[in-house]
């Protein structure tokens, strides 16, 4: 490595002092004169038409500034990072537990809760789709449009079908990973207000301020330069703050009340409605020669992506590209199908499908090592990416491929700090 004047050494992080001193301002810490508090009335059923929504009692409560449903939205009511399929406020049907139906702004947080309790709704419930398998059946209710297929991808490289003949060993396994929550330390929060120039300002806990700005502008039907989104100090995200959280609801309430509106989600509300990790099932067949060289991988990948797309199209694009792991393999197929259900929405979560793919490809490498009586580190070194490797999309790697060094340096460190553990890896 080159000698740098500044890099590759340690500096005090630019935001360290205010965090250590407790003066950093998170979204919930913002206060403004004349500020209102906001809250969301949410569905308690997973799939239903709304037959009747009565907001009048909530509106009549003294101290309530405003109660709005989807009819109040001046611009668009479909949002999402890739597919615009999630409403700010439900206008056709409820697609999951926790869908936002109405929003309230009131003088105190207690009054917000009282007003939410006064909102009355009648549902016409529909069968809820709760599994990938049910989603794929012809007679299943459709969560969006006329199919529950959210996205499919197909990766094809080399000739998988002919390759099996040249394999000395083939391992087949089905892997599944579960649904997880980010549990970022700071629940979602934000504040919106119209400034003296009539620009909608939104201060929020977010990973995605420019995207937020564009979505708020679309909701309000104003140019993007009439909206300002400022990221407040943010307490983690792990992908869970890439989707819109309180930004739209705060902005809509601020537009109608002409007053600042703050929303702070409880831990429960935050976890209930923010995105989750995609649970995946991967049925995988992997073949190798007797000296451990990978010959072919064939994987069928399915996923229940939940009620809205969020980052599913990104996850389904990334997982197949990574399905072999950091190894050379001349024949690869991966077919992936993600489905809509009425389950919690899955989205971006640290790794975008690669953690799931890694459970599969590393499980297969270990299965091969076992079948061939090889050290799991050795079989990885035999197949490791290097400069000149070609990945299953046909891309040649031309620089910065340090995989072998990670294998060697991890092995050497393990020999120093956990020699018995390293010894255990050797085949019996």
């Amino acid at each position, binding site marked *: 490595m*080159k000698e740098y004047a*500044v*890099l590759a050494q*340690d*500096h005090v992080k630019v935001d360290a002092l205010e965090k250590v001193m407790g003066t950093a301002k998170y979204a919930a810490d913002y206060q403004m004169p004349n500020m209102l508090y906001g809250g969301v009335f949410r569905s308690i059923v997973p799939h239903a038409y709304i037959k009747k929504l009565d907001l009048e009692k909530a509106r009549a409560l003294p101290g309530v500034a405003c109660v709005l449903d989807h009819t109040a939205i001046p611009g668009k009511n479909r949002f999402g990072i890739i597919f615009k399929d999630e409403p700010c406020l439900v206008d056709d049907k409820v697609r*999951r*537990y926790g869908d936002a139906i109405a929003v309230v702004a009131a003088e105190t947080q207690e009054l917000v809760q009282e007003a939410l309790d006064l909102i009355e709704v009648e549902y016409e419930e529909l069968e809820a789709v*709760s599994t990938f398998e049910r989603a794929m059946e012809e007679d299943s209710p459709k969560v969006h449009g006329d199919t529950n297929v959210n996205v499919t991808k*197909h990766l094809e*490289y080399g000739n998988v079908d002919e390759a099996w003949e040249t394999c000395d060993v083939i391992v087949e*396994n089905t*892997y599944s990973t*579960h*649904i997880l*929550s980010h549990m970022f330390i700071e629940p979602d929060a934000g504040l919106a207000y119209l400034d003296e120039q009539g620009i909608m300002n939104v201060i929020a806990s977010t*990973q995605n*301020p420019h995207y937020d700005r564009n979505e708020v502008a679309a909701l309000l039907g104003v140019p993007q330069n009439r909206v300002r989104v*400022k990221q407040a100090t*943010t*307490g*983690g*995200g792990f*992908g869970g703050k*890439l989707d819109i959280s309180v930004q739209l609801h705060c902005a809509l309430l601020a537009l109608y009340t002409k007053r600042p509106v703050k929303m702070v989600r409880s*831990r429960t509300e935050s976890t*209930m409605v923010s995105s*989750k990790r995609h649970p995946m099932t991967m049925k995988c067949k992997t073949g190798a020669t007797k000296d451990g060289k990978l010959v072919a991988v064939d994987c069928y990948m399915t996923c229940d992506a939940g009620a809205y797309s969020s980052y599913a199209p*990104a996850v389904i*694009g990334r997982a*197949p*590209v990574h399905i072999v*792991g*950091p190894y050379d393999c001349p024949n690869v197929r991966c077919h992936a199908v993600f489905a809509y259900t009425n389950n*919690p929405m899955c989205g971006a979560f*640290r*790794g*975008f499908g690669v*953690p799931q793919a*890694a*459970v599969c490809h*590393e*499980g297969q490498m*270990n299965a091969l090592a076992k079948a061939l009586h090889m050290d*799991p580190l050795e079989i*990885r070194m035999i197949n490791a990416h290097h400069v000149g490797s070609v990945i299953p999309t*046909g*891309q040649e790697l031309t*620089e*910065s*491929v*340090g*995989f072998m060094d*990670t294998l060697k*340096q991890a092995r050497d*460190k393990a020999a120093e*700090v*956990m020699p018995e*553990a*390293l010894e255990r*890896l050797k085949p019996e």
Partner: protein
Amino acid sequence: MKRRGTGVGCMFYGVGNTGLPNPAAAFVQVLGDTSVHVTVGAADIGQGSSTMAASVAAETLGLNYEDIHVVWADTMYAPEGGATSASRQTFITGNAVKNACTQALGELKRTASEELNVPEEDLIFRDREIYSGKDDSIRMTYPALMAAMGKKGRLAVGAGYYNPKTTYLDPKDMSGVPYELYSYATCILEVEVDTDTGEVTLLKAVSAHDVGTPIGIKMVEGQIEGGTAMGTGFVISEKIDIDPKTLAIKNPTLSKYIIETSMDVPVVYPIVVSSEGEAGPFGAKGVGEPALIPSIPATVAAINDALGTDFTSTPIFPADIVKAWKEREAAAK
């Protein structure tokens, strides 16, 4: 009975969005007293993208880290940053900062060249000084350069952006260039499993990560340690439960959704591996997500090694372990 096991987990990770454009931009101005404003769109959520931006700016301009002030993630002032996701900000916003600083360096180099009588291409900007690479006795301080800039009515400003060199993937077979560069990692992890209670104790984890060039060593090590905690918790403690009727999340609180505490995490030995490349700023790559990934399969493998089982599903909770161990013992008889 307590049994120990070892697992290996590896991964590679394409940095940035898959087969899609995903640019980010930066603005920079070196002020008259050599302090600097850098403005980036990138949201810093604690991972350190703003610290990264300050470091890259200081390295590029030849100033000190402390000279740089970063404004970030305010759409009124900051240009497009794209999402803080896909481990992309060090690579993409880092390159944007470098490009913006390179533009600002244009006038700085022209002026220094005139003042020192040294061709622009021979000038070196480093540690708040400017000198000739051919004869380092020919030199001037940065404040002297800024004073000369002021006299000539020149400003050191720059705007830059970067979009990774990728292609759209063919919808038929996904062929193409999905990412410009890839990070790599290997984790070796040891567990102890109590076959009576099913409890897994995480003992030690070595996790080696190829980050190209580390921007800050402690920041990379922090990512690896945090990622290992999250990755091991992925396998043995975290799970969302969904009510089968309402499809609501049954455990949305920290008391019922169990993330690891400092009492649970293994001893982590982070290893920062470097590799040579031109794509990232000074060769840097992302580590935010790679930090998490290898400890997940390594934990699964370590439990399987300890018990002689073949778990292929996550999570692996104590009840699963006790059941699998009993089945294994019954089969052995």
